[in-house]
């Protein structure tokens, strides 16, 4: 491009280009997220006649029953987050500082629970930790007991355990990706100056990894805030009721329950606050990540010796994690190979897999899930990447709040989203509900924040000196993007794609509202199978789902992407 083009070009890169780039996603989000969401939440902000009023919210915040529910929801989320962080830190350390065989496999496996429908997780938990679960039957057989020895489930602890199961891998991933970039040299220096053990961690290491911990914690907190089937079933019933149960009741039973809309609104505001905190923390952490210097990592195998206390601790930790993470999933897979009849009979059979892959509705569900997953990737990936790019380059006041708003789908339950589509488009001449693209749009809305999360970290990590250097060599904005920035984020793109795919394949609540018979997906099929006494079939379908997610996440780790 000639010299005369410079002022125009500057205007392009400065204002016009970002605005133009944003028009598409903004339009899409308005139509398929903010507007449908608003049409549900507005119920909480209006009185009976439809005029704007804070009366419903006000009444809600004065009702001791709802206050208790909100209080409990926040309380369990805080504790679950703390537990996830505590459990996740040693793992983050191991992953950051050591090399070991199967590291990628471990990372891929730990991400699976995250995209599983809650009913599969609950069944996996019950079958492993329950009164008649594998663990208890093992203990009873070993020690000749009459009664189940471990009563972990149906208590507050069970809720925390299940939430940790879901969420500590997030902590491991986010924190380790920061931790691995912090050169052990700092710690060695501190050690030579006399800092040891806890003091060393507290004064030297922790401040460096804190932004990572905070951003992971904010994210985990939001996920725990939205959890409900886990809390209800594993907690032992309405003793541990969360906000989402009431919101669910609104969505399913009474459409115009104003209190329900108001509650959903309260939930959305809490989520928004934490998303804001998350974005703040993430910016600090990616600033820290710019200090990347690579170094040799020792092999973990050399550390795992039973004689040294440290080796013993590592071993115990790995064992515990394997039990907590893998056991419920393995139990589901194992159960899927049984033939009919209850858990007692041990005959092994491939019957269900034969049925699934021999065609008919089962195979259709599998193919549809792949289709929706692929379409979601095709939409969510460019959209998330664009938003992340613009977000990482904008420095105006309020940009962080705007970014929190863009991330909002993370904090909204998908049942509200599905309901929003119904409500917003009911009188629309062109029927989007029951069409395949409505499902793709809903999945895209749910998935794109995860693409943003993955790609924006990479965009921020890019040293500003790089594009400057390219520009001084005469590269235009497109060349810059195509030849420099895009190649640099390609790992993040693949990671984002895997997440978008996994989230779409596992999504159930919005799909159940929006689908029609031809668009049945794997989770819907699981829900149906369980609804008609077919638990083995449901476990087999669940195993297929896990396999897809595992493959998707394995691709990430193959290409060396980071989460």
């Amino acid at each position, binding site marked *: 491009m000639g010299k005369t083009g410079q002022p125009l070009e500057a205007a392009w890169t400065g204002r016009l280009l970002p605005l133009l780039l944003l028009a598409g996603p903004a339009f899409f989000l308005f139509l398929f997220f903010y507007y449908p969401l608003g049409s549900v939440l507005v119920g909480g902000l209006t009185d009976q006649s439809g005029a704007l009023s804070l009366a419903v919210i006000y009444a809600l915040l004065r009702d001791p*029953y709802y206050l208790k529910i909100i209080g409990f929801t926040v309380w369990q989320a805080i504790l679950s987050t703390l537990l996830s962080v505590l459990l996740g830190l040693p793992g983050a350390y191991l992953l950051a500082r050591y090399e070991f065989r199967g590291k990628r496999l471990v990372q891929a496996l730990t991400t699976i629970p995250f995209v599983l429908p809650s*009913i599969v997780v*609950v*069944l996996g938990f*019950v*079958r492993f930790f*329950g*009164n*008649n*679960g594998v663990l208890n039957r093992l203990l009873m057989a070993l020690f000749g007991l009459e009664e189940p020895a471990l009563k972990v*489930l*149906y208590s507050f602890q069970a809720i925390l355990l299940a939430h940790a199961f879901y969420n500590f891998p997030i902590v491991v991933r986010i924190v380790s990706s920061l931790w691995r970039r912090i050169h052990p040299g700092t710690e060695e220096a501190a050690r030579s100056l006399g800092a040891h053990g806890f003091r060393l961690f507290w004064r030297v290491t922790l401040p460096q990894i804190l932004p990572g911990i905070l951003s992971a914690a904010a994210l985990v907190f939001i996920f725990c805030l939205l959890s409900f*089937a886990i809390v*209800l*079933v594993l907690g*032992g*019933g*309405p*003793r541990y*009721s969360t906000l989402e*149960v*009431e919101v*669910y*009741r609104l969505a*399913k*039973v009474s*459409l115009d329950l104003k209190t329900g809309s108001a509650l959903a609104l309260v939930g959305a505001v809490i989520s928004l606050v934490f998303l804001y905190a998350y974005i703040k923390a993430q910016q600090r952490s990616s600033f820290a990540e710019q200090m990347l210097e690579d170094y040799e990592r020792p092999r973990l195998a050399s550390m795992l010796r039973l004689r040294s206390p440290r080796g013993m601790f590592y071993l115990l930790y790995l064992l515990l994690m394997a039990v907590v993470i893998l056991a419920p999933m393995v139990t589901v897979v194992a159960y899927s190979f049984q033939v*009919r009849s*209850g*858990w007692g009979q041990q005959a092994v059979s491939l019957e269900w897999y034969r049925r699934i892959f021999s065609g*008919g509705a089962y195979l259709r569900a599998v*193919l*549809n899930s*792949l*289709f929706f997953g*692929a*379409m979601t990737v*095709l939409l969510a990936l460019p959209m998330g990447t664009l938003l992340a790019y613009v977000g990482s380059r904008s420095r105006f006041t309020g940009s962080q709040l705007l970014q929190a708003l863009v991330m909002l789908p993370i904090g909204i339950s998908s049942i509200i989203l599905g309901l929003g589509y119904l*409500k917003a488009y*009911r*009188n629309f001449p062109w*029927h989007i509900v*029951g069409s*395949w693209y409505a499902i793709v749009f809903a999945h895209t809305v749910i998935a794109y924040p995860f693409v943003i999360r993955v790609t924006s970290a990479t965009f921020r990590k890019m040293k500003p000196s790089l594009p400057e250097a390219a520009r001084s060599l005469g590269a235009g904005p497109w060349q810059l993007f195509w030849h420099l920035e895009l190649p640099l984020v390609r790992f993040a793109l*693949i990671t984002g*794609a895997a997440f978008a795919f996994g989230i779409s394949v596992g999504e159930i609540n919005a799909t*159940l*509202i929006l689908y029609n*018979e*031809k668009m049945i997906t794997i989770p819907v099929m699981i*829900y*149906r199978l*369980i*609804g*008609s*006494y077919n*638990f083995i079939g449901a476990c087999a379908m669940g195993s297929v789902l896990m396999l897809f997610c595992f493959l998707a996440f394995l691709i990430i780790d*193959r*290409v*060396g992407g980071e989460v």
Partner: protein
Amino acid sequence: MNKTQIHYVEVASMLLLLLFATGAAIAAPAVEEEAELVIYAYDSFVAEWGPAPKVIPKFEEKYGVKVKVTSVGDAGQVLNRAILEKDNPQADIVLGIDNNMLSRALEEGVLEPYRSPNLKNIPEQLVFDATHSVTPFDYGYFAFVYDSEVLEDPPESLEELADSRFRKKIIVQDPRTSSPGLGFLLWTIAVYGDGYLEYWSRLQPNLLTITDGWDTAYGMFTSGEAPMVLSYTTSPAYHVEYEQTERYRALLFEKGNYLQIEGMGILKGAPHPQTAKMFIDFILSEDFQVEIPLTNWMYPVDPAVVTPESFRYAPKPERSLQLSAEEIRTNQERWINAWVKLVSR
């Protein structure tokens, strides 16, 4: 890992993705034939093993019309969808309105009354809507199902269910999110009246957990988590029919079990009212009724229809309990709220 390898994986995964997308796009939703009757139904009605794949082709063949059955979640969501689309109805028939939901459907005014001539074959006590906006097609009873290999002396009444020997041995569902859950709450009210809360506080120590839906509860029950679960009297018939086991049995209680009657109705402003009436007549005919037991796991409303052998294990109570639609409408919100306050103490 070297550079060429990375490119290989990337390109391969992208190609795979595109392949899926195009492949599925070709296989999936082509333009549909114009349907001459649209039915909103709950999910399990539409499932491969549900009634729809059996009864719909019969109807289509008999009358030469094309029927489209759309699944819109569970029974509660079916009615919700109809209410949402009140001003612009997209369907002709809503299926799955039961005796506990009836008052809400009538109140919202979404249904068009139609009195089918075939109602003459149906016992009067099953015709639960006097306005004939909703026509019954099947019925069943809520019941506690127990595992006979674990429990030797099952309870014989609600009262005995609260006995301390069943501590932590029962799984029920939440009335806020599940229809059997709501049915059980109403059942305790039908038996204990205003004393239902007192009963629940005695029952509570026996509840292992309260689940959000029937599916989770029953899954936990068959996993051996607890020997008793709230379900239907027909549940054992399933295990006899498909698993050849009599292990699971349903309990009939002294004062009776709570009755659920399911029906369907024609929507006001339905695009195809005449065909819809033909369909209502059809659901009361033998062609439809005979399929109900083994696909919907309920009893057919037509007493002349012979139920399959396995239904010998689906006992019918001599006495059934029911609250009036009017009573439910005026009190439901209050009952549930009081219940939640009690159990969340």
